[in-house]
């Protein structure tokens, strides 16, 4: 069972259709599946809904698909730093469902775990609760949030072995892990494929069962939104 594909386009072949729901990993520009997003753009598929914490920035990540008008709806927690997004949103061309960041992450995990709904205190008494069932547990209000069941997951990982066991790097793990679990099919781009047996079985972040297709996306030129540094003290 070969999971490795020669290119992003090949890995997405047969998986894309207009109007589909895609769950994508990444936080800001950290750990976004950039090769796969580029290939989605190049495919021309449209009317997409993305469940993703952010919508990229103007010409990065999902931002590229906004520019080409392939996105109809975003399910996200934060969409700042994105002028094109703002323009389309204010013009009513783009639908947005705001989901609190933790609720969004849990909705993806729930979808992946076969849980169609769960109760949370997050958002009680706010706009987020509008239209949602409220239930009282032990005297406190909670709202019902729904699991996200996506058609496709797009994920960026650090290393994978040939069976699709994944390891992420530092804070690039973020939404990639829950997003990977909630799609009918999960396609992953990695920096490196390592031989079977070179990953520590106690340290697999996401077992290969979740991964159907992979590509090596290296070399990466990783972008940073806000470079913040300190000066070295003189020796």
């Amino acid at each position, binding site marked *: 069972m070969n999971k490795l594909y020669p290119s992003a386009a090949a890995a997405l072949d047969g998986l894309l259709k207009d109007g589909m729901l895609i769950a994508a990993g990444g936080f800001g*520009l950290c750990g976004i599946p950039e090769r796969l997003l580029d290939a989605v753009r190049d495919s021309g598929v449209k009317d997409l809904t993305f469940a993703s914490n952010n919508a990229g920035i103007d010409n990065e990540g999902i931002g590229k698909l906004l520019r080409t008008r392939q996105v109809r709806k975003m399910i996200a*927690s934060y969409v*700042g730093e994105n002028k094109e997004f*703002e323009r389309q949103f204010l013009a009513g061309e783009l639908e947005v469902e705001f989901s609190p960041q*933790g609720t969004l992450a849990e909705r993806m995990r729930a979808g992946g775990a076969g849980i169609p709904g769960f109760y949370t205190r997050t958002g009680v008494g706010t706009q987020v609760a509008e239209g949602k069932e409220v239930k009282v547990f032990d005297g406190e209000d909670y709202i019902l949030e729904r699991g996200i069941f996506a058609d496709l997951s797009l994920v960026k990982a650090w290393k994978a072995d040939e069976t699709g066991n994944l390891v992420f790097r530092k804070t690039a793990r973020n939404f990639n892990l829950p997003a990977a679990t909630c799609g009918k099919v999960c396609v992953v781009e990695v920096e490196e494929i390592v031989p079977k047996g070179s990953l520590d079985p106690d340290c697999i972040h996401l077992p290969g069962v979740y991964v159907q297709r992979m590509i090596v996306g290296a070399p990466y030129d990783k972008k940073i939104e806000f*470079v*913040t*540094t*300190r000066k070295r003290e003189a020796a």
Partner: protein
Amino acid sequence: MTIHDHLAKGWTRDQMAARAARELQDGFYVNLGIGIPTLVANHVPEGIEVTLQSENGMLGIGPFPYEGEEDADLINAGKQTISELPHSAYFDSAASFAMIRGGHIDLTVLGAMEVAENGDIANWMIPGKMIKGMGGAMDLVAGVKKIIVVMEHVSKNGDPKFIPACTLPLTGRNVVDMIVTDLAVFQRPDHNAPFKLIELAPGVTKEDIRQKTTAQYIE
């Protein structure tokens, strides 16, 4: 620090952060919001160790990296480059918010546009303006054990921000435990109690606070 800070009586942004930092206890796990709250990290009292959580998936945030050592895979929730500590741990976003929602974080410090006398907080959107989203703010105020708001006492227009009821869409209902402004500190022992004025910034009088506050509070 703005010019305003130097001229007006009351606390500077750094002093506000330092005041909030006095609420830290040894062993606390803390999430700091963007802006003044971030400055709290610079004022951790001596002898106290706290561990900073970043909701994008890290415990044990280190200082900004040295120039040239920035790592695109290592950022905080404000998307700034940070560094690692010997006891840092990484995890995914669902695990991160399980930690937050589950009440395992002791304290969060965050900014606000309005706080109501019943503990409601509004800090994520202004109707008519572009909505950027709530990010993790709703999760934090709903899940963290103690919520400290750090904000200017009045808006740029001079309007009180600690008010009878929020006029802006809420981030959380009845969640705030303490308010540190540039003029004073309010606190309440639990979510059924009213806020109490417990401290005044240097040169500020109770009368100043009365004039700039429309919320009911205990003096």
